């Protein structure tokens, strides 16, 4: 059948199972927007293209399905780039479609022309410029296949306006010919045997579980492996939810703001099992002193991650689910009682320093807000965080039991991520209770998407944790720059009035007894609801491994720190 390029875009999206796209129209993408009206795909009009990219990303992270965003040429496309880079660093399967000036004027600095494939080359898994309508269907199909395959990530298709307008015979390519695509291979038998041998010999084994657990759907397989081998588990930020936090062998987050007992366990372990993680600098601290006694087994889909940061003794470049299914029956059932007792001793010591057990003296602390939010939501919400102190407190004080219940920008650390990503997550999983947890700084970066939220009438609840500072930067200034607070004190609007301007009900909380009742009120209110939590101005996330320091050299929360916090 004859179709215009614009129609082919939508034919392809429908074939790929896309039910919603996030975007913003403009001149070079106008033919595609015109054709959209004839296809059963919901379009969410954003207020800034960065929001569209984060929404597609949030959609993908919440569901595992490919998220799609669409924008026009030039500024439309460049506004996407922060979101594309965010998706790239966290391996989120996303497809971006951008309009481009007509092929005849490419390279002439035509109105709203930018070299979009050039700009996005280093922040996509792959991208392509389509100048001829006959290439379009195959190029879009390939973009989806590549975005989903192996270690997922963003792809971009830049479509010249004349290619959208021209017609051709449309045939959706069921299969594509991509000889360069790296497909996961099953784990090799001799590597599995070697892994089983190392696991059998280990007396102090420890699992480092990353986002790969969630991506490969290996949550259950990991649980079976852990229960058979009696191995304690630490999680990366993006791995949270991949293993139930309430499990007795789950220790929680590792690394820069991980609990001290998790990092102590890593530093004392004699075997590290790295499952779908990439030894990020936020996880390892100083590489020279990292896990000095441990043999290391790295199970990772992406061969380029092997030996990048940490030298490993055995690497299995394979899908984690396939590896665990093969490996678990090969290892003996074990209990590491002495090792677990040692970890428990460290854990008890930490318990006394925990801010949850300290008196806040009537002040509202962000960690307490997160804890109460967890209680009031029964721990079952999909929480989408921004970046900064609140993000770390969320990771520490909102225990996640199931995969895809924490959505956060880990690798790129993109402020402004939370609100748009939550909109995407809610579109992907309408049945889920979705909460934004954002700081006053990050929230203001993309708060224009409140209008999108209201226009789409989505049931997303928002917690703005307002401490009047760019809190994490202020914390670094406090610790490492002599408390010289350069450009971190921040004036914010009245968030309740702001929400009101968008027609969104809101309430401000300044005292702890009001936290749970207000969260309950938000939950009982249909549609969006914003709560501003006016919290302690100067508080720090503890413990902390200063960047590049030894993992065991943490800055700990002083035993009665809460009383020392300035009013």
């Amino acid at each position, binding site marked *: 059948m004859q179709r215009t390029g614009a129609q082919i875009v939508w034919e392809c999206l429908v074939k790929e199972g896309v039910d919603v796209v996030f975007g913003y129209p403009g001149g070079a993408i106008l033919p595609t927007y015109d054709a959209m009206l004839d296809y059963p795909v919901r379009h969410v009009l954003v207020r800034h293209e960065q929001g569209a990219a984060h929404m597609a990303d949030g959609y993908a992270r919440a569901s595992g399905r490919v998220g799609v965003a669409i924008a026009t040429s030039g500024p439309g496309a460049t506004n996407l780039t922060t979101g594309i880079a965010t998706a790239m660093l966290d391996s989120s399967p996303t497809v971006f479609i951008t309009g481009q000036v007509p092929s005849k004027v490419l390279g002439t600095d035509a109105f709203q022309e930018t070299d979009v494939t050039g700009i996005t080359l280093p922040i996509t898994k792959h991208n392509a410029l389509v100048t001829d309508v006959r290439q379009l269907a195959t190029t879009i199909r390939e973009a989806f296949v590549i975005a989903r395959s192996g270690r997922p990530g963003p792809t971009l298709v830049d479509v010249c306006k004349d290619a959208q307008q021209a017609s051709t015979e449309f045939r959706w390519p069921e299969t594509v*010919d991509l000889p360069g695509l790296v497909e996961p291979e099953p784990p090799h038998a001799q590597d599995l045997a070697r892994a089983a041998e190392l696991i059998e010999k280990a007396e102090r084994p420890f699992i480092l579980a990353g986002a790969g657990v969630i991506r490969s759907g290996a949550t259950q397989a990991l649980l079976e492996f852990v229960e058979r081998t009696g191995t304690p588990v630490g999680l990366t930020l993006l791995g949270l939810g991949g293993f139930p936090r309430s499990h007795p062998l789950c220790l929680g987050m590792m690394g820069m703001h991980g609990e001290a007992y998790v990092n102590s366990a890593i530093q004392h372990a004699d075997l590290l099992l790295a499952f779908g993680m990439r030894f990020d600098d936020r996880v390892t601290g100083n590489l020279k002193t990292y896990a000095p006694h441990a043999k290391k087994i790295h199970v990772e889909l992406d061969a380029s991650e092997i030996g990048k940061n940490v030298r490993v003794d055995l690497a299995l470049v394979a899908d984690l689910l396939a590896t665990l299914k093969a490996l678990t029956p090969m290892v003996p059932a074990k209990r590491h009682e002495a090792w677990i007792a040692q970890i428990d001793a460290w854990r008890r010591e930490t318990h006394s320093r925990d801010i949850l057990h300290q008196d806040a003296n009537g002040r509202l602390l962000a960690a307490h807000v997160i804890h109460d939010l967890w209680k009031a939501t029964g721990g079952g919400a999909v929480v989408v965080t921004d970046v900064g102190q609140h993000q770390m407190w969320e990771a520490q004080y909102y225990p996640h039991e199931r995969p895809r219940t924490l959505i956060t920008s880990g690798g790129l650390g993109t402020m402004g991520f939370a609100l748009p990503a939550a909109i995407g997550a809610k579109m992907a999983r309408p049945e889920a209770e979705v909460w934004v947890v954002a700081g006053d700084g990050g929230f203001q970066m993309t708060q224009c998407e409140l209008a999108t939220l209201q226009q789409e009438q989505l049931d997303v609840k928002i917690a703005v944790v307002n401490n009047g500072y760019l809190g994490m930067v202020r914390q670094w200034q406090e610790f490492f720059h002599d408390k010289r607070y350069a450009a971190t004190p921040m004036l914010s609007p009245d968030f309740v009035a702001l929400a009101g301007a968008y027609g969104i009900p809101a309430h401000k909380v300044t005292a702890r007894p009001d936290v749970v009742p207000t969260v309950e009120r938000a939950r009982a209110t249909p549609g969006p609801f914003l709560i501003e939590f006016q919290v302690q101005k100067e508080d720090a996330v503890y413990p902390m491994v200063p960047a590049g320091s030894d993992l065991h050299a943490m800055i700990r929360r002083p035993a009665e720190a809460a009383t020392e916090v300035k009013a």
Partner: protein
Amino acid sequence: MKHTLVARVADQPGVLNRVASLFRRRAFNIESLTVGHTETGDVSRMTIVVDTARVPAHIVEANLRKLIPVMDVTDVTHLATVDRDLALIRVKCAPAERAELASLVEIFRGRIVDVARESVIVEVTGDEQKVNGLVDLLRVRGIVEMVRTGKVAMVRGSTAEDAAIGHGTASAATH
């Protein structure tokens, strides 16, 4: 240490840019990179010599492999290979010295391909060591201008036949 990687890549616009961009953003150090046509119309071949002092060769290889147009990568550093570098060297040469120069160049199986009043252009092909040897000798006479292609390499004999079979299997995989 220097490693020599041979990559077969789809002959598409922008492939060289993707490879160059990868090396730039990962701070991999390219010694030389050559690209040219192969026996297959839609496949080009790159011979990349990379300094692996900072980043191990397998990481460079794995990163190259992640680029979609890159079909396969072989590290031929420790394989028996035929490798060649071609140099054009304009060297100072008075008319009276031409015969002597010609016989010197002849030892390196090179030849004089252009003659001007006070200089000649010498062409030489061989492995890098041989070319370097001639360049050193010509330097004392005064090199005015030089261009080298950088290394191209091909695996020798039966190793290559095994590798070619490997290539066949890899490119048969479609999705």
